[in-house]
């Protein structure tokens, strides 16, 4: 049982490492946010689950469960708020970008007013 928990924890930590690597390698802030949010959410979920499996005799399952639920609910919200703020203060997308519908719509509205 403990070995199985250890394997799950190891997979989770590999996803955490991939998230940090994505933060370093991606070219602009929106792509960094994508890599960071997704990889760290699943990585933390697997990491905590593995530790809960390994420590099954202590009564800490409930707290780890509430921690996992909390992270799943709040991580996308903070990422969304940051992306919105970054687009609002005008941080540009990378040169490889194809389209930017939000900037198009905003400039249209300002032109109409």
């Amino acid at each position, binding site marked *: 049982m*403990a*070995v199985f*928990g*250890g*394997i799950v*924890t*190891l997979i*989770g*930590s*590999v996803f*955490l*490492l991939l*998230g*940090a*690597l994505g*933060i*370093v390698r991606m070219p602009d*802030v929106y792509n*960094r*946010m994508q890599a*960071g949010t997704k990889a*760290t*959410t699943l*990585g*933390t979920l697997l*990491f*905590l689950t*593995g*530790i809960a499996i*390994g*420590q099954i005799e*202590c*009564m*800490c399952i409930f*707290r*780890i469960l*509430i*921690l996992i639920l*909390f*992270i799943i609910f*709040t*991580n996308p*919200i*903070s*990422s969304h*708020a*940051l992306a*919105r*703020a*970054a687009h*609002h*203060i005008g*941080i540009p997308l990378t040169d490889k970008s194809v389209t930017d519908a939000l900037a198009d719509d905003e400039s249209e509205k300002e032109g109409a007013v």
Partner: protein
Amino acid sequence: MADILYNTSAVIALIAIVLAGYRSLKGPNVADRVVALDVMTIISISLIVYVAALAQRIIYLDVAMVYALISFIGVIAIARYLERGL
């Protein structure tokens, strides 16, 4: 065997925290730094839970919970400041 697996994953999470810290120190503008801070927070929550399992004390999990709550509020405050001032 299980101890080796747990310690290896802690070392990998430590490498991840160092990489995110590199981006937080280097990042070209403010939003990059805040994203790196967010990722560092989530990884350090995992590290805190690992330390709790290592020391066999339940109260360490409370620290992780308080940390998740407070850092969420901090990131929201920074985003709101960037958008229109606090």
